[in-house]
């Protein structure tokens, strides 16, 4: 082949490549990342929003820790986290924060012997399992909560998150509230030092391990347990009642929250006081970079659509949409920040 043919080929290839520099106005993409907790519903909303508006909301489920990191670094347009950032943290990272949906963290387990019957657990037992103090399924403490069930004498394999996770933050926040030893030895956060067990990446990874590992137990966001047909434990709440995770018990837990726009909605709703409140409930927060006004307006357009149109989708996946007064507070927060 002659030299000039080679050059021609190279030139054409470069020209072809140059076309990728052309910004495609036809389909705009906004990039978000973070909480795996909210991934199932967020992608559903994104899928529908694209059909309606043509705007692609590309959300990557890398864990709340990742969402916080990437939005702080401004490598994405919005982050999602189940762990709320304190007003001080928001100020130092120059971020805005608002809730978008409510969900619950459940304890999924894999006990082949327990077909049809639900396991009952409480804060103390969960704490014991994850601290490695309760090692076997037929431990007296577990048996005390489950009198009618024959528990196997097998070692428990707790599964936790290997990545920076808001779900972990919710779970460990709950444990810190109900279990003194936990608060002292481990604490809460997106990435804590778990004492024992296996770790999976994302809610997806934990669900995957629980599904395929007999005698394991793991904490996952409710939608993951339901979608993967995992057995879910009933929990004894603060009021002493045994509750199942569902839309109503989540709602009740959320109703006790004091969410203040002035405080950037910073609040935890774990171990809520209500009679039928589910003990491990949480809000999902969206984080925005303060200074990116134009991007934020576009992101807010998506979430405005979500607040208006996304309720049914959320309910179908067992998430609790924000109550009306909270939605108004969120909208006024947007207005106060010039995004609405």
């Amino acid at each position, binding site marked *: 082949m002659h030299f000039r043919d080679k050059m021609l080929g190279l030139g054409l290839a470069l020209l072809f490549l140059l076309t990728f520099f052309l910004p*495609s106005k036809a389909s705009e993409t906004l990039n978000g990342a973070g909480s795996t907790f909210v991934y*199932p519903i967020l*992608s559903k909303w*994104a899928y529908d929003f694209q059909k309606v508006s043509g705007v692609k909301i590309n*959300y*990557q489920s890398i864990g709340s820790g990742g969402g916080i990191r990437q939005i702080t670094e401004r*490598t994405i347009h919005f982050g999602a986290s189940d762990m709320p950032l304190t007003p001080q943290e928001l100020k130092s990272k120059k971020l805005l924060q608002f809730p978008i949906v409510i969900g619950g963290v459940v304890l999924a387990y894999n006990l082949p012997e327990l077909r049809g019957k639900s396991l009952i657990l409480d804060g103390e037992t969960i704490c014991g399992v994850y601290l490695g103090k309760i090692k076997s399924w037929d431990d007296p403490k577990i048996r005390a909560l489950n009198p009618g069930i024959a528990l196997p004498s097998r070692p428990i394999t707790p599964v936790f998150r290997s990545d920076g996770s808001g779900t972990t933050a919710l779970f460990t926040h709950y444990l810190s509230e109900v279990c003194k030893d936990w608060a002292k030895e481990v604490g809460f956060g997106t990435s804590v030092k778990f004492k024992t067990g296996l770790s*999976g990446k994302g809610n*997806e990874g934990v669900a995957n391990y629980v599904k395929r590992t007999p005698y394991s137990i793991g904490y996952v966001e409710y939608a993951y347990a339901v979608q993967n047909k995992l057995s879910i434990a009933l929990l004894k709440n603060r009021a002493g009642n045994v509750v199942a995770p569902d839309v109503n018990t989540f709602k009740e837990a959320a109703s006790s929250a004091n969410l203040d726009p002035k405080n950037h909605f910073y609040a935890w709703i774990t171990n809520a006081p209500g009679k039928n409140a589910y003990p491990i409930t949480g809000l999902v927060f969206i984080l925005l970079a303060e200074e990116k006004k134009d991007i934020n307006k576009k992101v807010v357009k998506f979430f405005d659509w979500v607040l208006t149109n996304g309720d049914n989708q959320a309910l179908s996946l067992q998430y609790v949409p924000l109550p009306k007064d909270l939605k108004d507070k969120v909208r006024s927060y947007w207005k106060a920040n010039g995004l609405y």
Partner: protein
Amino acid sequence: MIEREIRKRKVISRLALLAAFFCALWGLFWLFFIIFDVLRHGLSSINLSLFLEVPTPPGEPGGGLKHAFIGHLLITLVAVILGIPFGILGGTFLAEYGRNFRFSRFISFLADTMVSVPAIVVGAFVYAIMVKPLGHFSGWSGGVALAIIMLPVIIRTTEHMLSLVPWTMREAAFALGAPYHKVIWQVVYPSVKTGLLTGCLLAIARVSGEAAPLLFTSFNNNFLSYDMSGPMASLTVTIFVYAMGPYEDWHGKAWGAALVITLAILLINLTARLMLKKGGKS
């Protein structure tokens, strides 16, 4: 007495060689087992929609991996356009212009070492120099990471191929008054073009199977995108995400994608080696 000794030694020798045979069986067994397993799991997921449709939300069946196939092709294309020219140029220097300097032997050695550097290290490097300063993940940075992995491979194979050309061929061209660059382009390159091509093919096969360097450079994208300046889906990262997830539907797609990649890479490898064989014979 001596007969018994000799027989014992012969028996030991037979046993040792039998053990060697079983070692070969061990290696071959795993190769076929893995390929068979990938075929078994992946074949059922190979249908037209895998290639032609974009993904549905998690948990919902249906959809495909069109976005990942196209993204992967684009990223690999960038890697090829960046890595191959520089690789061939570099190898040319080492084998031609720089062939008499000790410095070149040193660079050749460095390149050889770089071939085996952990891919994830390259990914972290490109994250630090491209993603963080530019402020976003991009298909470009993914391509750059793969190009960095390809570069030493191409340099080494180019240098090797060029060094196989007898010096007399160049001398003949010089005697005709040709300048060095013309000698290279019109005499040396054409005589090794098959070898160069196979080197490039093998390098492409190697990088198209990489996932680690793409994890923090091109990241991932749930939508079909041609915008290289933003995050891009790739087959390998998608396999990682889908395989680690809990949804059966995802697992099936991951197997399908794994089958496609494995077959493609194996095919490229076999083709390249066949070409080398034929080129060598002629």
